[in-house]
């Protein structure tokens, strides 16, 4: 059982996700990038779980999936409302909270 491959895959996925969150202009794509990061975490959890021969990792992964589903539901709803208000989901223009 090789742990490193999984960890590398997860690290790559996570970095892709971070890039997406920081760089994309489209709100939907930002959300999708967050999903990528969460799934990188899931891979880590399952991999460590298998490595240490416990089911705890899989259980946590299931929790994360459930939370992610809820999170994406809320996120999409917010983006939908933003689109209705501004006819655009470019988050560069969303700076009405500027101090």
């Amino acid at each position, binding site marked *: 059982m090789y742990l490193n491959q999984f960890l590398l895959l997860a690290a790559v996925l996570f970095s892709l996700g971070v890039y997406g969150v920081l760089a994309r202009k489209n709100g939907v794509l930002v959300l999708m990038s967050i999903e990528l990061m969460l799934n990188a975490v899931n891979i880590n959890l399952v991999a460590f779980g298998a490595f240490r021969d416990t089911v705890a990792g899989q259980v946590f992964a299931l929790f994360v999936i459930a939370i992610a589903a809820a999170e994406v539901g809320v996120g999409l709803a917010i983006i939908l409302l933003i689109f209705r208000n501004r006819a655009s989901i470019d*988050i*560069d223009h969303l*700076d*009405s909270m*500027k*101090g």
Partner: protein
Amino acid sequence: MLRNAWLIPLIPAVSFFVILAFGKRLPGKGAEIGIAAVGLSFVLSAVTALQWLNLHEPRHPVARHLTWFEMGGVEVGAGIHVDGLTVMMLLVVTFISLMVHVYSIGYMHGDRRYTFFFAALSLFTASMLTLVVADNTLQLLVGWELVGMCSFLLIGHWWEEEANSSAAIKAFLTTRTGDIGLMLGIITLFFAADRTFDIETINRLALENEMSHGIVLVGAALLFCGVIGKSAQFPLHVWLPDAMAGPTPVSALIHAATMVVAGVYLVARMYGVFWEGFSIHDGGINAVALIGGITVLIAAALAFVQDDVKKVLAYSTISQLGYMVMALGVGAWTAGVFHLFTHAFFKALLFLGSGSLIHAVHSNNMSEMGGMRKSMPTTFWTFMVGSAALAGIPPLAGFWSKDEIINGASHGYELFMIVGLVGAAMTAAYMTRTCWLIFAGEYRGHAHPHESPRSMAVPLQILGVLSLVVGLLGTWVVGEKYRFSNWVHFHVEGAEEFLEHHSFNMSLAVISVAVALTGIALAAAYYQRTALRGLTQRNGLARTGYTVLVNKYYLDDLYIDGIVRTIQYPIAKAAYWVNQKVIDGVVNGVGIGAKRTARVVYDVVDQKGIDGLVNGAGWSAEEGGSVLRRTQTGRVQQYAAVLFGASALIALGLVILT
């Protein structure tokens, strides 16, 4: 059932909430729930009593305890402790309560708070039963305060009249005065007994002299304050006659048969503490016996001058409670508890009988009764049985228990034996007076007296029969196994037996009957011979005595004028003088000084120093803010970048450091 005795208080407690929630919508307005619950409790109590009787001797108390929480090694919880005393109390409370519930259907018919009345009766029964089964002082205190609250609610049941609500407040405050002592006593004993509330342990430690005598005395004296308040002993007896403002069934249940005996029950339950604390075994005069003895006599004397039939019975109750306390004070434990048992039956009977009379003539005053014998035969016969039982005519209930008390006092406490005999004569005499005024002669009122409905008459008949026979439980008539002194006795696990029980003594019994008959004869003579009548108007000495009694020894006046006014007026006046001259002078002086100092302080410290600081703080916050606001771009992705960057830096730091 012995182990499940906790069900007995639980059932009426549930019934209280059910009646409150659904009572008004039911056909019987909630009365049927109350009766069913108390009836069930009574059946369970009877089963418990039978099981207790059938235990192998020597019987050991059955205890169960549930821990609620533990804190610093102190365990707090609830539990049951079932022994003979508990079983006896369970029977008495549930039975009298059942009778009163049934009776109330008739008596309270059409009352505007009918449903609430039954709910409160249920709550009262539940609280009293909680108190009775309690295995620790804390639970006992909970039950104790709850019965006090129910008493308050029920005395003020007709609170629209101010007299009733002030009677309720008076009862509550007077008993609370004693309760402070009770609470302090519980705390004292808690620490003295090495941090436990367990009654059995406290009793054992007290009896084995594990606690110092001084602290046991303090604990017992403080507990006794609670007893004086709750059981209406001299000098806190003043609330009980006023408590008669409540509906008569309440007077029967709470202020005669059950709640007021809670104090006596407390002494009986924690007898180890009282026994050691007041050195009851020494045979000298002790506070318990003394207070009991005084109460017997002064209350009996007061009963002579009352016109209100319920007040006669109230003073009679105080006097009988005095007997019980006195019995416990002279070491006659079984006799005192037995008197509690028999008294509950005949006093409930008398109160319910008086309620029946009041129901018929719409007045509490005996001057508006008279000749009731013809119009109310059931009430007449049952009332006569109750009076005879109270007066101590053999073989009725009161005779046996009163005789046991007098007999117990005759072993080393001869003074209190004489008090008991004098009290017996007075009891017989004032009951003769009461019966004479109510039933003899012609009707003096203006209503149309009629016999009460069946729901009121049947409890009277049942209680009448029981008042005839329950006294026999203490005698040789019943078998050894069922004899009262056999199944109700004070026993502490691990401590040796220390009480002796003195059973029947023929010569004393003859004396006490003779004394009671003399009392009856004297009272009868007073009312039959016109020559004696009006003595209180003609003879100076008799008139003085009468005036003192009518004014209740001026105790109420003493409390109001002597204590409340003393605190209110002179102290208030003195406080006003101090306020005007001393405090105002000081205040003014201080004020002028303060004004001058303040001017200086204002100019130098405030305007320059503080304002400078405050303005400086504001200015720096403003400047800092205008710098920092540039970081708040409102762009989520920038925030995220800072977040990720910071996490990366922290991770890097961790990697380098470890």
